[in-house]
């Protein structure tokens, strides 16, 4: 009974957290699913977004410019990864690792120190939901509106001529070239979009917890991946709308599981292990299943 009550109390907070991480999950889904190009840059662009946003808020800028520049910085990180991948012919994974490593130093430079507290500054949450930053449920509602806007824009873009072309390049680069598409241009644009979303997640997180820290990116990629995989298991990915909603729905469910794990007595520091195991099971399950089937 105790466990249930603990979980019940955690639901609102875990919904809000899931909504914050949903931005990153979207930013992870784009390279992994739409571009078929595994990319780890999110581990660096998430804290980059947080650092830029926090540094600008602390310097007295408004919330809108702070978030806008955070998003632009994330786009730039994505572009750098794409250009390294395309110019030096290194795999996108390695290009992302190089960029996220470099971003660690950049993020400290941006803030001038390894972390920035925002408790005494106005944030998205205090501005919209009152000086206490709102209750977890109102925070969730605010984030849900933001997510709906982002998803709507993404859905619209992916049906424009340019968006269709980007998806075609992600699906089949040879076909893309044969149909007159500059594959590099679309890879760069796709990773830039992914960077925007990861950085938006970071900027939102910094304001949500009133705190930005260079280490806050550790593990976000696997969280984003876990959310995407979980959402795909729930919604499927046969239609584009489902593919776009999957990371969001998955992220919300993922943080429910996190809340349950915590109520069962796991420590927050155990979560990365559990998440890794979850992703491993999700990736391994189809392979084990087909192996079992072929054996029977």
């Amino acid at each position, binding site marked *: 009974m105790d466990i249930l009550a603990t979980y019940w109390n955690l639901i609102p907070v875990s919904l809000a957290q899931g909504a914050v991480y949903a931005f990153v999950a979207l930013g992870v889904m784009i390279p992994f699913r739409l571009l078929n190009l595994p990319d780890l840059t999110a581990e660096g662009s998430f804290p980059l977004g947080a650092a830029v946003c926090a540094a600008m808020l602390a310097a007295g800028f408004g919330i809108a410019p702070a978030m806008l520049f955070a998003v632009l910085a994330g786009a730039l990180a994505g572009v750098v990864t794409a250009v390294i991948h395309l110019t030096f012919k290194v795999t996108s994974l390695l290009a992302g690792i190089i960029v996220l490593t470099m971003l660690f130093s950049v993020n400290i430079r941006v803030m001038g120190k390894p972390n920035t507290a925002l408790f005494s500054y106005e944030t998205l949450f205090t501005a919209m939901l009152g000086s206490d930053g709102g209750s977890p449920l109102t925070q969730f509602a605010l984030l849900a509106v933001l997510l709906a806007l982002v998803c709507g824009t993404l859905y619209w873009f992916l049906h424009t001529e340019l968006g*269709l072309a980007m998806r*075609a390049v992600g*699906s089949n680069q040879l*076909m893309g070239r044969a149909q007159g598409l500059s594959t590099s241009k679309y890879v760069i644009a796709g990773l830039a979009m992914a960077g925007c979303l990861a950085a938006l997640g970071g900027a939102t997180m910094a304001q949500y917890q009133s705190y930005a820290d260079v280490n806050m990116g550790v593990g976000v990629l696997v969280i984003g991946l876990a959310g995407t995989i979980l959402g795909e298991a729930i919604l499927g990915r046969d239609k584009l709308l489902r593919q776009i909603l999957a990371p969001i729905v998955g992220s919300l469910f993922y943080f429910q599981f996190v809340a349950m794990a915590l109520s069962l007595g796991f420590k927050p520091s155990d979560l990365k292990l559990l998440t890794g195991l979850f992703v491993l099971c999700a990736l391994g399950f189809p392979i084990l299943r087909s192996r079992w089937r072929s054996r029977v």
Partner: protein
Amino acid sequence: MPETQAGVHVAGLRKTFFPGTVQEKTALNGVSFDLAPGEFAIVIGSNGAGKSTTLNAISGELPLDAGTVAIKGRDVTKQPAFKRAGVMSRVFQDPMLGTAASLTIEENLSISARRGATRSFRSGLKKADRDRFRAALEVLGLGLENRMQDQVSLLSGGQRQSLTLIMATINAPDLLLLDEHTAALDPRAAELVVNATLKTVGRQNITTLMITHNMEQAIAHGDRLLMMHEGQVILDLDRAEKAKLTSADLVSRFHDVVSDRMLLN
């Protein structure tokens, strides 16, 4: 050369893979030919003769060591493949390669309908597009016009290849490149795709270069026959010469040319 100006000009294509190593392989050793506008040329030749390499070089997918490719008098040799796609289109041997599997049929057609044009933030699928795509698919007689919102991954190889053909010809290209595009299909699907090819190419009078390994096809269709061997065009027959040809003739002509060359070497 007025003919060259208007049609396709291919001259002196050379390509050596892995030069200066033990695996050195000269795939193209001076391939030259011109195609008149609307000409339908068939390319045959033994395995490894350099047929695919020739097409890949013309499309820009493969960088050349030397040679020139010009379409309608414009030299495209220095253009990357995606730029050349403005004037030429392709159907590959592997039915999986010509379409984007995760997009729907109409989305694939939308991509190809804008081949060579600049793309913008306009909607990729308007009502007028759909009507045009439906009409183009109806020609195939496969019922794909009723499945325009299905993902291409749901289609069979023959259906995908037919769709690729429609995508390649929905805006008549200045040159259509077909690389054994029915070789991977079962006989029935292959026949459907060949018929669709003849119909579309004939109706729009598209200049076409089609590789085939099927002698009957090579003899029955086309205005021109090019035979390749060891990276060169060793036989070039026009429509009249081709009309007199039988399968057995072709084989003996091939052996004649090849043995003459062996003697010369």
